[in-house]
């Protein structure tokens, strides 16, 4: 399938909307699963509402590729500009949600249902090598409660409760819990030919049931200049590991549970803030074969992180600021003596020069020392120019280094091994971007980047029977990202993104697997967000390589979704979604995992 039809569609619709928008004013879109521009917060007055799947929110961001293991609620890996795995940093109100053993994050673990702001910073320099995803909770001005319950195809169910209250002027709490479940069985087409000709040859995807639960509690306290908070987050996930399309696994299951907590204390004066935080986490992970209890594989580990940061304004009239942070970390596998210790120091300085144009300069430098990986420096230089309110230009140069993860170094004998000889990998990235923001009417952002991942860690065969990670010679990455948002009327909006990605693993001279050369998401809204409205979404992904040698490919796909919102009363609304409207049965995600055909989901929301 060619990328051109989608590109042309986006271009023509953009022209149409730009023309329709002339001379009209509207309000910014309140579409709950859209974000207007990367690096700019998604502003919402209420907790956001994702309709069918959490990942709908992330698909709107350019530079992101989501690889799901088939069906709703299965683990989802996220790639930022082609880099995946342990290279992404995820932060939920200061709490680090990345698995301390393998460095991975399952996007379906993240509590998008309660987060208020979402911010994505691509590239190294802000924590991860590929980027940093930050989620924030709503600030509590008054007590509130929201409950949602939904049901849909594949026996999918979802129930959630979010509540917040302020005890008195000094204390408040936020509580949220969500349970989700799906039977997960769906029909898919083994080949593109069968889908059109013989429905009796469709294959049922089984062992795909998933059950998830997340819960969080945050208690905040204020005493004059002193602020403190305690935040607990727990997650449980149990489900089938369904395998690839033509080589399904009907017996393998896995579970992952963890609980993590963070305590923060901050002292703030007029131009100085001192903050200290301590995080601890306990994980338990199991895989087993159905009906074979003696084949369990278990792992448990504990980790803790301590951070102290001092930030302040050193020239208040120019809004110049600095942040100096020190951190320490400790991780240990509970069933062995393997452990890791580390410490880090980071300085970030921001300068604003108001004349002749507002120019913001940001500099950051720091390092981490890990006992088994050595010193890992990072640095960032960012210039941000705003010659007029509508225009913005920026240049960003960043470098970061990542230590090999615990699993990459020490995974014991078996099919997947660790490699104790691994060295850290480094990423350099240069980005230029420009943005034209007509505020309530039109937004256009274009960015181009080039990056090089030096010593990139990827898994290859160690022998005929085992795989292990090695430092490769590196990966070239270059890309172009476009975001467009047009709001010609209060009842009409178009948002979309297009991304071109070129990667090349030097060792094999082939693109990285599962990174599409072209992908695009286009969303069209009809109706006012406060009233009955409908969103139509098209998601296109070009053909992608499936292995490091470029010999296997996943075909391109185009999926169309629709979302409806029907306000029932002032404190109740009904949401309905149809995913994959045209029932494309041979769409495949990474590694040939089949995606479901047409599915429905209905959700009722009640607010206090």
């Amino acid at each position: 399938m060619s990328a051109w039809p989608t590109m042309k569609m986006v271009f023509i619709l953009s022209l149409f909307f730009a023309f329709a928008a002339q001379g009209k004013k509207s309000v910014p879109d309140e579409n709950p699963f859209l974000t207007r521009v990367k690096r700019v917060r998604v502003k919402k007055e209420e907790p956001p509402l994702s309709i069918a799947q959490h990942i709908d929110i992330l698909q709107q961001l350019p530079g992101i590729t989501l690889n799901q293991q088939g069906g709703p609620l299965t683990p989802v890996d996220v790639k930022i500009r082609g880099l995946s795995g342990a290279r992404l940093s995820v932060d939920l109100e200061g709490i680090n949600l990345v698995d301390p053993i393998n460095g991975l994050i399952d996007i379906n673990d993240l509590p998008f249902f309660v987060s208020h702001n979402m911010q994505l910073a691509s590239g190294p320099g802000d924590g991860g090598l590929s980027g940093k995803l930050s989620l924030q909770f709503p600030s509590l001005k008054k007590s509130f409660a929201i409950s949602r319950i939904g049901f849909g195809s594949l026996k999918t169910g979802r129930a959630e409760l979010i509540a917040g209250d302020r005890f008195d002027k000094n204390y408040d709490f936020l509580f949220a819990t969500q349970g989700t479940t799906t039977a997960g069985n769906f029909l898919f087409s083994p080949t593109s030919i069968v889908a059109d000709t013989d429905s009796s040859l469709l294959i049922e995807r089984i062992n795909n049931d998933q059950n998830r639960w997340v819960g969080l509690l945050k208690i905040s306290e204020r005493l004059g200049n002193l602020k403190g908070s305690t935040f607990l987050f727990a997650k449980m996930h149990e489900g089938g590991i369904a395998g690839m399309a033509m080589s399904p696994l009907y017996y393998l299951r896995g579970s992952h549970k963890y609980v993590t907590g963070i305590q923060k204390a901050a002292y703030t004066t007029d131009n100085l803030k001192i903050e200290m935080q301590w995080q601890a986490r306990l994980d338990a992970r199991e895989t087993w074969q159905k009906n074979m209890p003696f084949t369990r594989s278990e792992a448990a580990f504990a980790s803790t992180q301590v951070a102290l940061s001092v930030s302040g304004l050193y020239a208040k009239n120019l809004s110049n600021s600095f942040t100096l942070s020190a951190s320490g970390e400790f991780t240990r596998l509970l069933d062995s003596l393997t452990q890791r210790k580390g410490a880090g120091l980071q300085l970030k300085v921001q300068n604003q020069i108001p004349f002749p144009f507002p120019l913001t300069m940001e500099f950051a430098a720091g390092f981490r020392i890990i006992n088994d990986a050595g010193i890992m420096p990072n640095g960032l230089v960012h210039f941000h120019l705003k010659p007029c309110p509508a225009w913005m230009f920026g240049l960003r140069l960043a470098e970061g280094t990542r230590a090999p993860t615990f699993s990459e170094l020490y995974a014991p004998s078996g099919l997947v091994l660790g490699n104790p000889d691994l060295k850290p990998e480094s990423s350099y990235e240069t980005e230029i971007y420009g943005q034209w923001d007509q505020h309530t009417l039109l937004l256009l952002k274009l960015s181009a980047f080039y990056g090089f991942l030096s010593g990139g860690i990827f898994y290859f065969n160690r022998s005929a029977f085992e795989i292990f990670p090695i430092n490769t010679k590196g990966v070239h990455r270059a890309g172009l990202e476009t975001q467009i948002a047009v709001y010609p009327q209060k009842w009409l909006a178009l948002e979309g993104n297009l991304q071109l990605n070129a990667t090349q693993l030097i060792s094999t001279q082939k693109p990285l697997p599962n990174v599409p050369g072209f992908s695009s998401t286009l969303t069209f809204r009809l109706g006012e967000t406060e009233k009955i409205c409908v969103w139509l979404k098209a998601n296109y992904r070009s053909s992608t390589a499936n292995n490091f040698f470029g010999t296997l490919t996943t075909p391109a796909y185009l999926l169309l979704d629709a979302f409806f919102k029907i306000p029932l009363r002032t404190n109740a609304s009904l949401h309905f979604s149809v995913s994959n409207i045209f029932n494309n049965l041979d769409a495949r995600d990474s590694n040939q995992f089949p995606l479901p055909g047409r599915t429905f989901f209905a959700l009722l929301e009640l607010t206090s």
Partner: protein
Amino acid sequence: MSGLRNILNLTMLFTGILFQTACPGDNDDPDLSYFYPPLKEHPLCRHELTVVGQDGHAVKARGFTGSVPANAHIKLQVHTKEVQTIATKNGRFELTLPVTQAELKSIQTANLIVAAEKKILETKYRIRRIDDSLRQIPQKNPLNTGSVPNDLVIAYQQERPFAIIPASLAGELHVFPLDKEPKNGLLLETKTLHFFPDETNAPANPFSVALDHAGKRVAVSLHGQHQIALVDIFKQKILSVTKAENAKHPQGLAFFGSNLLVAFTNLIESGTRHKPAQFGPGLLARFVQVGDRLQWMETLQLPCQNPTHVLTDDQGQAWVSCAGVFSFLDIEKISLTHPAAFLKIHVPEIYGIGKLKVEHMIDLGIQFSPGSAAFVQDTIVAGNSIGPGILLISPQAKNIHEGRILLVDSEKKYPSFPYAMPGFGNLVFITDFQNDRLLVLDMETQILNPWPFKQGVPLTKTAHLNIFKGPIALAQRKGRPGIDFQAPEMFALFNLSAELIPLSFLKVMGP
């Protein structure tokens, strides 16, 4: 500094892309082309078995077995110098002519004169730069096979060769024409047959193929579904699917007349990091091909575990190789918990009469796990799948100590040699899985990697980067390259990179 590096990298990247676009590849050098000019056939010399090239400060000529008539007079002339010898009774010869460095640079050709039976043949040979020529053997345009290809056979339809490849993880059987040059890993004439998961969602995992004696059908072992499929390869149709009672996980198989023998590994439980895989006793089932179906006749319990290949020796007798049971408990090495073995099998010749039985067993112990073996000159040649050795052993031997193991130099720590195939000139070609190369064993001298194959035949460029593609099987096209056809004659199947790479030995052999 890193910014400058970025710019340089960016420049290199785009320069590379532009260069690739502007210069798509080959020049007029016949050594770089997929198809090459025909060789002139002459009874005095088989050019495809003869090579002339540099060897240090000398020009060397070598004719492998059958290259010239027995006791022929051979003379090598380089400029004004010459050297001569008499070929062996097997038609082999070797000549070395010392030359100066200056002569090596200036002289491009040598004359090879063969005299026998009152005839003389003088042929001008290029003096090959051996390392460069060896690198040109693997062709640049491979064929993409589907995920985890495991086996390779060549079938013929009206003299046209087709590769039959089962891709295990993809559940596919590919039929590729081999007389055309692939483009971007594809050929329009490629046909793909799909094996779907069954009603219990068990995958098919097509594992091995065996061509029947009519050459139009293949039996395919469906490892995940414990079945054997009979497929008409040119009509792209599954004719029938059969299973043997109480036998699980078929792997290797071969036809003997109308009998089909299938090795069942009888896997009970896959291995984990805590304990090795559990196997039942190895089983060998016999089926009889009756029209479009296979009929199960009997199953023989073998005195070894994990039988992986069914082989045919040079007398047409059946053999089974048992790989033994692998253990991964030790992170530093892979070992066997149950011994490996070769078994000679008596196969009933007449339909329905007699029984399968083990005629002879060679105990291979727990240090050597054989891959697919070759039978040449009353010798079994097999690579070790878990260590650095090539075994040469008599079919009459009782245990591995009666054989001879040739140790192989390997830069890698965990070598594996899964496939041995008899080739031209009494050479055996053995795949080196971890180094992406072919080892060449001269059966006449029992020397591993004789000149000009001193380091073997390199198959890819990535092996030295610790990234290997894993050659797992070989097949050779019928006929004489250069005489009967002008295209690659050998094909290497890569398990990890999922590709079939054509090999053209006339890039180093011949005039």
